[in-house]
């Protein structure tokens, strides 16, 4: 169970207190989710500086808008939405010459690439230290285009549902699914190059 799904009741209690003006309760919510918000921001913006700005802005916004929180979604999902929007704004600002749009039409692009067909070594997690593993995974994510990266981060790293991801990004469910598949296949391609069992024959894919 994810932290978000497993703690809704506790969040609601804190949220009620925070809304009634208990700043300590809000601080507790912030401490609970600061790591996740920072990770989302870092994964999307790929910058320490931007990620820290997003972290601060997201919690300031959440604090300012506590009264607007409807309680229909989970607090965590609401917070993620704020963090994602702030992160995307950072991306757009940075690339003002080349707009980063989530609406970019990807349907006309080429089919997902599948080149590396090789089984993985058993338990790659045991062959690498946690730090090495993190580096490998981060580097692979960095190589994705933002429109694929954002969807992958929300679905497979932060474990939002397809519907929550679609709602957060203002995309249709089919668009989320096709981008997610593309992202997963691209990452699979990169990780297979690292994790494949040595000496394994690479079969051609027809």
């Amino acid at each position, binding site marked *: 169970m994810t932290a978000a799904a497993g703690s809704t009741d506790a969040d609601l209690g804190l949220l009620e207190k925070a809304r009634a003006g208990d700043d300590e309760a809000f601080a507790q919510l912030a401490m609970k989710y600061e790591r996740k918000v920072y990770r989302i921001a870092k994964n999307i913006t790929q910058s320490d500086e931007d990620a820290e700005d997003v972290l601060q802005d997201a919690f300031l916004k959440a604090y300012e808008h506590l009264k607007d929180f409807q309680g229909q979604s989970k607090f965590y999902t609401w917070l993620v939405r704020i963090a994602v929007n702030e992160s995307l704004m950072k991306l757009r600002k940075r690339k003002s010459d080349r707009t980063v749009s989530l609406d970019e039409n990807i349907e006309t692009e080429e089919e997902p690439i*599948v080149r590396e067909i090789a089984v993985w070594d058993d338990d790659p997690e045991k062959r690498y230290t946690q730090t090495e593993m993190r580096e490998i995974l981060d580097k692979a994510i960095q190589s994705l285009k933002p429109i694929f990266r954002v969807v992958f981060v929300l679905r497979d790293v932060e474990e939002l549902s397809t519907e929550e991801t679609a709602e957060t990004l203002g995309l249709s469910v089919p668009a989320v699914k096709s981008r997610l598949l593309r992202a997963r296949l691209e990452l699979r391609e990169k990780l297979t190059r690292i994790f494949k069992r040595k000496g394994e024959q690479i079969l051609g894919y027809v």
Partner: protein
Amino acid sequence: MVTCKDFLKEMGDYLDEAADPATKKAVEEHIHNCPNCWVIFDTTKKTIHVYKGMDPQPLPEDVHQRLVNVLETKCKKRKA
């Protein structure tokens, strides 16, 4: 009969356990008979697994402290 191309298209829903029973059965039949697609399925599943298994790292202490400071300032302003 599901082709490799069909399989790739359906793999996402299958991995997310969102495929309808007929598609699920067709996909399973295909990967049972097509070693390449089985490898793609297996390594994609493992790709998702390694990412899901990563806990968020603790915040660098200075980043955490600056967040605390920013929030404290904000709270004091509201109370003032």
